[in-house]
């Protein structure tokens, strides 16, 4: 059994207006997994992801990341679990591509020399190096999303969490991001992707978790769960519908 990275026990969250966000979530996540968190809009996916990063505080229950409780080890958690948000435009902080990637490292008070080295490496790894002096707002959708990934990757996380990584992307943009995610998983990162449109990534996933009304309804391999998806409001991939099983999305 691989190393257990995240351990969640009986996690509950109620919003200030009384709306129940999460109900009794129990789940463990292991190193190297590629997890799809599926469910229709409003099923609690985003709320769940925000707990992983300590952005929301739970009412009851425990989240442990590598054995440490999240609420007491915020910085450690945020270094271990990197989070790529849904809208790439609203998570950009820097004036240039380079500064944007350097932001997290500056917060962690790395020296300038270390920052330059790490940022250069991250940008080269995601083929963004030639854009380093550009303004982030002038990039294409796929480039912006990869920039957001670079900003996370540079902090050397073990788990990378994506919230709807393919929304608003054109076909080439989607391919770019998908290829990047697959490469990250192959290099040993644990991947968690929250999405209501699972067709793009289901072939690469090792595990699917289906949420509805703030609860985890099903948890299993893609092959086992693919036929159950539509009863939870998530579209079943075409290939499976036509009886061809799960096919890779990239041709």
């Amino acid at each position, binding site marked *: 059994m691989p190393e257990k990275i995240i351990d969640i026990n009986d996690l509950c969250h109620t919003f200030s207006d009384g709306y129940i966000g999460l109900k009794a979530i129990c789940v463990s996540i292991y190193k190297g997994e590629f997890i799809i968190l599926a469910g229709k809009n409003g099923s609690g996916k985003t709320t769940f992801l925000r707990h992983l990063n300590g952005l929301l505080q739970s009412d009851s229950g425990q989240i442990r990341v590598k054995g440490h409780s999240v609420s007491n080890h915020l910085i450690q958690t945020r270094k271990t679990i990197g989070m790529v948000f849904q809208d790439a435009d609203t998570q950009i*902080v820097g*004036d240039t591509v380079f500064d944007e990637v350097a932001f997290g490292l500056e917060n962690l008070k790395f020296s*300038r020399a270390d920052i330059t080295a790490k940022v250069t490496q991250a940008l080269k790894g995601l083929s963004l190096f030639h854009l380093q002096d550009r303004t982030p707002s002038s990039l294409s959708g796929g480039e912006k999303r990869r920039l957001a990934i670079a900003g996370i990757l540079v902090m050397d996380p073990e788990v990378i969490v994506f919230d709807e990584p393919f929304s608003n992307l054109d076909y080439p943009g989607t391919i770019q991001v998908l290829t990047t995610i697959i490469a990250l998983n192959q290099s040993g990162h644990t991947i968690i992707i929250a999405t209501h449109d699972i067709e793009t990534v289901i072939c690469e996933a090792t595990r699917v978790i289906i949420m509805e009304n703030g609860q985890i309804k099903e948890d299993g391999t893609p092959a086992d769960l693919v036929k159950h998806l539509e009863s939870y409001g998530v579209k079943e991939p075409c290939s499976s519908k036509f009886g061809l099983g799960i096919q890779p999305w990239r041709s």
Partner: protein
Amino acid sequence: MAQLIPFTYRPGNSLLHRLDVRLKFFTICLISMSLLSAHLPACGGYALVLVFFFKTAGLNVWETLNSMKYFMLLLFFVFMARVLTVPGDILFVFHDISISEQGIMEGGLVAFKFFLVMVTGLIFSTTTKPSSVKSAVQWFLKPVPFVPEKRVAVMISLSLGFMPVILKQAREISNAQKARCADLQKNPIKRILRLVFPLLKKTFLSADSLVLAMESRCYTDDRTDPEFTPSGNERCFFAGTVVLCLSLVCF
């Protein structure tokens, strides 16, 4: 943004591009202040110096004048106000208005000085990266008490990043309303509300997700300092500036 704001940074590798931004900043303040007490010959001399740097910065004369046309109008205004009010040897009288030689000279000089200060600023902003300007501001604010200079620097980056996003959304909202015949609305308050309220609401909500993204990337006020890279020409340039300013004040 680029169409709206003419004087944006243009990448390049000229002497001015490579100069340490703090020195450029200091120089520009010194020159602007010296200009205020300069007389016509000195201003003429400085104009020649500017022409040289104008060429070095790779600016196009016609484009520049065209983008400054509103400012020129303001200058003309300043000129006319002096011409009409400064007493002296009457040059000619038109109906009730008498124009004096001193008035023309003084008005011309004041307008010329404003013009020179403006062009100096323009050369600065076309040869300096916004991120360097931000770093310089942070550096100059450091000795000022009660000002959290690192936070100010982050706020500058954020607001520069927001500007293109806001403009894009403003255009979208305005087009969406035009498509529904909003132009027929004559009530000016309603017109303001219909443009501004959705714009504010949308951008504030996206600001909320930016807050989360910054938190998840470990934002703190205690961050790595910016780095400055002197080009090696600073001493010569500074000596030149001092000589220039002294001659501006003396002649």
